[in-house]
């Protein structure tokens, strides 16, 4: 009997110590640490800590880190299932088939990040890639410039991991130049030059991949059109 009492008392003491440890360390790691980091981040890099917002004409138009779609207005705004049609005046981002919509807590229209998770032999993925390739060829061929299927780069027909990839490859951007120039009645050379200015190489020459930020490129394009022709 006394042995049981002792072991019960010991267990009780042990659990109390565990609870106290957890509470104390929760204050340290779950309150002090994030607050200290937030304070430092907001003081040192406020723009980045708050989402790298990008402004155009004085208005916030998104984040340089979050991809957007550039689509035509819906024919029927109330139809949730209506497929988006690309607005071909603007540079188009990568497909985002994995991007979900909020299904758990519908009081918000949050963007839900995510990938398709389809395997290389998945029939749906094969179809998506084929369809995307055909669409890229069709959309980007102009009267004077024919795009061949073999020219379509891989990022133009695959969805990213986050579904929010803000970038496309310089090859995919280059492929869109003729179309964008034609749709906006701009000389191809001018759009080419704009693209060149917005192409980022690898960091330090070897880190990451060369890329073009689609939002910033489109902002540049908009500015190019509002500027009087020189």
């Amino acid at each position, binding site marked *: 009997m006394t042995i049981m009492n002792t072991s019960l008392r010991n267990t009780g003491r042990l659990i109390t110590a565990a609870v106290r440890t957890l509470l104390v360390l929760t204050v340290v790691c779950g309150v002090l640490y994030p607050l200290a980091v937030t304070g430092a981040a907001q003081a040192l890099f406020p723009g980045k800590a708050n989402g790298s917002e990008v402004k155009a004409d004085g208005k916030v138009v998104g984040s340089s880190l979050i991809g957007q779609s550039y689509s035509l207005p819906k024919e029927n705004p109330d139809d949730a299932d209506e497929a988006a049609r690309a607005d071909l005046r603007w540079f188009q981002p990568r497909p985002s088939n994995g991007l979900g919509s909020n299904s758990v807590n519908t009081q918000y229209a949050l963007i839900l990040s995510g990938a398709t998770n389809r395997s290389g032999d998945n029939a749906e993925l094969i179809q998506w890639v084929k369809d995307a390739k055909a669409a890229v060829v069709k959309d980007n061929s102009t009267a004077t410039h024919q795009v061949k299927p073999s020219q379509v780069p891989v990022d133009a027909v695959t969805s990213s991991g986050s579904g929010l990839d803000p970038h496309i490859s310089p090859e995919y951007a280059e492929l869109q130049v003729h179309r964008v120039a034609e749709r906006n009645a701009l000389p191809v050379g001018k759009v080419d030059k704009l693209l060149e200015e917005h192409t980022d190489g690898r*960091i330090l020459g*070897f*880190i990451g991949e060369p890329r073009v930020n689609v939002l910033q490129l489109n902002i540049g394009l908009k500015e190019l059109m509002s500027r009087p022709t020189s």
Partner: protein
Amino acid sequence: MSPVLAGVLQLLALIAALALAYRPLGDYMARVYSSEKHLKPEKWIYKAIGANPDTQMRWPAYLRGVLAFSLVSVVFLYLLQRLQGMLPGSLGFQAIDPDQAFNTAASFVANTNWQSYYGEQAMGHVVQTGGLAVQNFLSAAVGIAVAIALVRGFARSRTGELGNFWADLVRGTVRILLPISVVAAIVLVACGAIQNFAGIHDVGQFQGGSQQWNGGAVASQEAIKELGTNGGGYFNANSAHPFENPNGISNLLEIFLILLIPFSLTRTFGQLVGSVRQGYAILGTMAVIWIGFTALMMWTEFAHNGPAFEIAGGAMEGKETRFGIGGSSIFAVATTLTSTGAVNSFHSSYTGFGGGITMLGMQLGEIAPGGVGSGLYGMLIMAIIAVFIAGLMVGRTPEYLGKKIGTREIKLAACYILITPALVLCFTAAAMALPTPGNSMTNSGAHGFSEILYAYTSGANNNGSAFAGLNADTQWFNTTIGLAMLLGRFLPIVFVLALAGALAEQKPVPETVGTLRTNKPLFTGLLVGTILIITGLTYFPALALGPLAEGLAS
């Protein structure tokens, strides 16, 4: 520069950075766990806890500390999620369902961070920052503590004393994890990771209208998520989300953080057992496997076999432009050879062989370099098995680090290596045999089977990554994966601590000419072979049905 060359250079840069940090961090950690002094904040903490940090514990007491603390943590995290709707700072998110709350609590306490929920649409500030991120620190500190206890078992003689669990837990958190996390989090913000408490808010868009963001303490969680080899993302897309991993630099930094402590702990081990060369032999084993796996992964991903990838012209499905194939492959191997499970690209859309490499990495037991602490103790168990096999071949009683590997020691080591395969294979078989679990698959055929094999491999090995096509938010998967994570974490810890106790009680055996030199490259070779053969024999049939079948067909 070709993408392949850029990938190789990034790998070399990573190796150089890890090599630079190896000695200072390894030596520092050895001092942290052997110093007699307590820092001032630590003294306050011990006072608040009511524990005497100088009491030495034998293995049963140390184990009771680990289990009591982890049990309390599971209950606390469970309640936090169940009460979410009533807590302030929850952004209006409601309570998590019981089965999912159990799964998530088990997952974060077991250093797994398997997530059957969508971070940005389920968890508010209080649960993310005050619950999940806290376990990112504490489960990591528990892992290191257990590894240090095992190392003390080798280093000490004629005593059963393994140190004080509370002191090891607090020191690991305060002196190792917190300072590195603070620096890493601020560098991540400098790259573009967010760190605010803005909650859910609207942001304007280029063509008008707005998009809704969930702003929170992301960078601070990201830093410890990688450093503590946890892997639980703030957002559903994990480290593929630009707010968690904004550019090529942050990507390399995150991989560096994943590998930093597990590799450096081999130096700590060497210091504590009095021979850094013993640490180098273990480090060599880890490095050979890690570099070999990374090379294989880059080869298969750049080769992009598989119908959809061949039509597309590359394996970029589920990968981000800013990382490319190279930066994604290095990350995928680092995350599955450790117990991290964070992803910067989606493993389900890797080539058949690429998916197989991620699975095999976990099935090795996550020991190259493995999770923080768990990688070292897992590798030392393998070293004991290797020494035992070598002993059988020459007919000598095996010894390791001056300790006899007798019946008791080898039984404990054998129990350790049997637990995870048993959990993985039994749960996978059950899920395949029952009628409903298969409904959760997104892909069919070999890849569908792989989704389930991956899920239990990831759970039982405390990884947390997924072939995420699997809808794991069902009562079956929440419950069984939850159990696999708890059993896969804590049963091995029972055997490790029992082994540590047995070793610490022994008196050291003097080294003779017949002693196997465990500090030489020959031993590294023996150890690599042992690991590959044991894992291969265990998992080959299951792998043949999944990733091998898929890879060979394409």
